[in-house]
């Protein structure tokens, strides 16, 4: 799923990079705001909010630690390539895992941070293609998938996670195919069946691993910050 440099034309790659940067600014802002609100509601103020004071205290430290922890889990899981259909391999995207634990904005930040570290230090996914990879896996795979989860989570937690995982993997694969076909690397209609049938298998894997990792992460007390 990580698009390398060379599959996208420069126009598409740079346009998507600009969009990803804008979205990153917005989501980081929301993450900081959430931490600010946390502090505004701290005990000792008789429940009053400290309007206008944006300080960061101990729970902010823990909140950032939780984000770091989730991103480390996603990074480790993405390193584990599992053989599928005896000729390809797949790994977890982790977008739904991150968004369920931290919400859509922090989920976007977490997946983007993992993708950026992979592109810059590991040459996993292109530098120019980082915008496209962020759109596919962080925006679609985490941010948008959160709302699929949210829409169903009140009725059935398992169904919500599975539906979000299927949306996450399939919509991200579709976006990836659209990006490389617009860039002229491959014909959309020719590669559609191969791309989507493989990712249908990956979506099953993503659902099972996400449910497992969420259970383990919560049991270890990682979700309580």
């Amino acid at each position, binding site marked *: 799923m990580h698009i390398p440099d060379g599959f996208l034309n420069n126009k598409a790659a740079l346009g998507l990079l600009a969009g990803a940067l804008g979205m990153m600014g917005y989501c980081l802002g929301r993450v900081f705001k959430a931490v600010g609100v946390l502090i505004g509601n701290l005990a000792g103020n008789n429940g009053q909010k400290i309007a206008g004071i944006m300080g960061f205290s101990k729970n902010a430290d823990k909140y950032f630690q939780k984000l770091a922890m989730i991103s480390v889990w996603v990074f*480790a899981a993405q390193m584990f390539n599992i053989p599928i259909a005896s000729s*390809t391999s797949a790994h977890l995207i982790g977008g739904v895992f991150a968004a369920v634990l931290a919400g859509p904005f922090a989920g976007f930040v977490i997946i983007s941070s993992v993708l950026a570290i992979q592109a810059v230090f590991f040459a996993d996914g292109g530098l120019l293609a980082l915008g496209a990879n962020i759109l596919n896996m962080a925006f679609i795979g985490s941010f948008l998938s959160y709302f699929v989860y949210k829409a169903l989570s009140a009725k059935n937690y398992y169904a919500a996670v599975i539906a979000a995982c299927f949306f996450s993997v399939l919509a991200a694969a579709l976006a990836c195919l659209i990006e490389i076909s617009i860039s002229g690397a491959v014909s959309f209609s020719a590669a559609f069946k191969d791309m989507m049938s493989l990712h249908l298998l990956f979506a099953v894997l993503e659902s099972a691993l996400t449910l497992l990792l969420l259970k383990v992460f919560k049991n270890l007390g990682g979700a309580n910050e």
Partner: protein
Amino acid sequence: MNKKIFLWILPIAVILLASLFASSYPDALEAISEKYGFAENAYTIKAFFSEYSFPLIDNAFLTAFAAGIAGIILLYLLYKSLFVIVKKMNK
């Protein structure tokens, strides 16, 4: 023992297992790029831990494991510095 320590031990264990057993088959996008003949368009700029290997370590398992640990440290430092910067800005 505080069970929260496992929140750090578990990803390290996953990286350990990944270094030993990770599949080297191409991923879906690579497989499709080979099938439809645009795989050769891809180019990579050399990075510090390219191909998940740690510079100067030759052993296949150790080099992948060390690179994975480096990834964990980099992510931790990224969030730590993000926190420190924002904290300073708000003072």
